[in-house]
């Protein structure tokens, strides 16, 4: 874990993220009894977006999104370089804030509602993800990702409750049902698309690529729970992704109240019980 892995992430994450996205569409289609687009379809889509005209409502709206992209890449790079997990989370929040501000800046009612819901989503998932970091620290004695990865036991054995809390907020970060409140990839929402309604062309393509970076990063956090063995870790990460798709296709979007109460409640209860157990056992 070092600068090398960080560079590897910066180069490969969009490819992997794009493939994940393509796989997502294929598997989802099969679940719905359709054939679905080719696996490489997301790349074609993004490529096409790059050729399109860049329409804006407010001239400075794209600048926020540029920073969202840069900071998303930075977040993941910091994570894959083995950096401090809390610092990674702060960088993630910073990136998210720029994304939301972009939505606000474009000043259209649909992106405005989307931006607010995105903020609500951030507020919903943040406790759970910080609790993941705290609990991992309690077990491994370090916030550094590089130390957490080299912990000899699978962390899931010590952190089942925290893992459940993490699974619960995963759809938010993947913008999947039941928590795709701010924006979604479902076809019925492609025109009026929440927070990204007023973004098009090159900027929309960049936002899409930033989301690919985020996918890889979030799955990377999931991998940490099984990190003592690479192959088990990769397999479990894939299963997490699969579970996400099943949930996406089996649920309808819920109201924000459900999301907020659900993810906070889950973080508080499952995470809290887990942490109480760790405290009773003693921690470094």
């Amino acid at each position, binding site marked *: 874990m070092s600068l090398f892995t960080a560079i590897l992430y910066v180069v490969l994450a969009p490819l992997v993220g794009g493939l994940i996205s393509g796989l997502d569409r294929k598997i989802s289609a099969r679940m719905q009894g359709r054939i679905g687009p080719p696996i490489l379809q997301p790349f074609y889509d993004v490529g096409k977006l790059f050729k399109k*005209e*860049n*329409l*804006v*409502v*407010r*001239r*400075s709206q*794209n*600048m926020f999104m*540029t*920073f969202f992209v840069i*900071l998303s890449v*930075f977040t993941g790079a*910091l994570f894959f370089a083995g*950096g*401090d997990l*809390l*610092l990674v989370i*702060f*960088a993630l*929040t*910073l990136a998210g*804030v720029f994304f*939301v*501000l972009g*939505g*606000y*800046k*474009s*000043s*259209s*009612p*649909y992106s*405005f509602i989307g931006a*607010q819901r995105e*903020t*609500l989503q*951030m*507020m*919903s998932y*943040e*406790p759970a993800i*910080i*609790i993941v970091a*705290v609990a991992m*620290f*309690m077990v491994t004695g370090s916030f550094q990702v590089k130390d957490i990865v080299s912990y000899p036991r699978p962390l899931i054995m010590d952190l089942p409750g925290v893992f459940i809390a993490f699974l619960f907020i995963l759809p938010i970060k993947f913008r999947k049902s039941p928590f795709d409140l701010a924006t979604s990839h479902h076809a019925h929402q492609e025109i*009026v698309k929440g927070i990204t*309604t*007023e973004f098009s062309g090159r900027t929309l393509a960049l936002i899409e690529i930033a989301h690919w970076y985020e996918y890889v990063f979030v799955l990377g956090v999931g991998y940490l729970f099984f990190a003592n063995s690479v192959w088990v870790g990769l397999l479990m990460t894939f299963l997490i992704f699969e579970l996400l798709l099943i949930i996406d296709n089996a649920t309808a979007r819920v109201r924000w*109240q459900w999301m*907020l109460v659900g993810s*906070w409640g889950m973080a*508080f209860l499952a995470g*809290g019980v887990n*942490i109480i157990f*760790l*405290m009773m056992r003693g*921690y470094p």
Partner: protein
Amino acid sequence: MMLSLIVFLIAFPLIIALILGAVRKSSIYPVVIYPASVILMIASLGLIWHGAKAKASLFPAHTNWVEPTILIIEILIAVYLLLLAFKRKDMVVTGFVLVQTALLLAFHYGPGKEMHVAANLFMDQFSVLMGLIVGVIGGLIAVYAVGYMQDFHHHHHEVKDNRPQFFSLIFVFLSAMFGFCFSNNLFWMFLFWEITTVCSFLLIRYKQDEQSIANAFWALRWNLLGGLAFLVGIIFLYLNTHVAEMDKMLLLPKMLILLPVSLLCFAGMTKSAQLPFSSWLVGAMVAPTPVSALLHSSTMVKAGVYLVLRFASVLEGTTVGLLVAMVGGVTFLVASFICISQNDAKKVLAYSTIANLGLVILCAGIGSPEAVWAGMLLIVFHAISKGLLFLCVGSVENQTGSRQIEDMSGLVVRMPKVAVMIMIGIAGMFLAPFGMLISKWVVLRAVILVNPLISFLLIFGSAATLFFWVKWLGKVIMVEREYKTNESTVVKAQWLVLGSLAAMTILICAFFAPVAGFLVEPYIANIYHQVVSLGSGNMIIVAIMLTMVCMFPLTFLDYGKGVKVVDAYLGGANTGNKSMQFLGSLRDVKDMDMKNYYLQDYFSEARLMRLGVLVGILFVIAVVLIGAI
């Protein structure tokens, strides 16, 4: 040398206050206040020389006339407050003042007659840090206030122009704050504590309408209760140990001083508006904005957390400490939640101040070296960013006549420079890599090592913080319609103040490592014999993030290039005013309007406050009771 600097810092503002009170001409405000503030700022920067010293310096400062003068001042204050309280028929205030004065006199002519104090004044890195905040931020706010009050009376003819009193109170207050920071004699400390209470009371009722007077008495009531606890605490300490000095007190065995410390913590919590006392600070927002900035966010309320943080090493590992930490943590959580449902910008700032003071109290209760490190830096970062935000809101209110966040949409076009300052201030309050977040990060790490369950208060509170700051930021940058730019009410001196506070918000993040290394870490090393730091690897990453965020303005080089501007999508055909009106399904013209979420059902002020006060009362009673046992 240092002693004369302290005496100057206490005496000089008093002289200025006298001049301002005596000469009743509005033309002298700039002439007197600008240079006086600059002198104060420079003088307080002189305090830095002491920072290099390893140990605290003690100054005897004995003179025959000081003790009787202090008693006379205290009696005069008591008589003045009694008169006001009688007139208002406020029996609670009357009672508090009577009990306090009786106790003080009984002590002074009874057991305290023989009291010998070796060193009345002292100075260490922590008091230097506080002195710097009072001098620099206080000086800046005083400069800002000159222009603000002029505008204020221009807009509010119903308010009687009593600026001589206003400005002299501000300077009396500054003097008292310096006195508080550098007093080693606990009875001197108490005097200065009470003077700040009275200044706060008089400044809150400045507008003299019913609301202001009621809120002022409400604030006075709680602060007097705190003052009473302070007095009982130090008298108790003296009766048991014959110690009336801060430095000697901290050397006594923990068990002996736990009750006085818990009483002083109680006093600190009232001053810092922790739950269950928080409501007075919210009410205090009726005062003119510079008062809110100076007394009720940057300095006076910091006196409370300063006091509690001084006793961190005593609180560490005790049940009292844990309970103090719980009060702070619950206050942080509840006040942050309440912010979500608030639309009044000053109220948001008030609750967020309460929340951040709670965070410092939490640090003090935890009491580990890391926690104290974070607490001290929180005081600095918060004083700067919050001072800036209050002053910006004041300017917005003077310019637009409203301080509702909903009315701030398009501010980035209407008042571009102020909007940028607000953005910097808000970023300073909650966003990585700015100061508040760095300290929060250290608090989190410190709390986990002591009790991970307390960290839950911090984690959920922070999530709420994110929500309300982002939606405010969003309102400021969005552009709903076409606006005219007008920032004419902000005068040159005020720009200078706002600009320096904004620059300080950013610079203190870039250079907080030296600040911490120079003032905070030596202080901690003295007490805990331990070194605290963030780790150089993390510091580099923080520096990288800061650089990245500061590059944001560069993107404006690309402003509007390669894009085509179109109307916003409104769900109907756009018509009339661009992006603002559309045709409804019956071909009628509809206006578009955008309002933020306030989540009233979940984060209503009344309900959360009730709950918070209840929990707060339980914890605060427990603090004192367990201290007594």
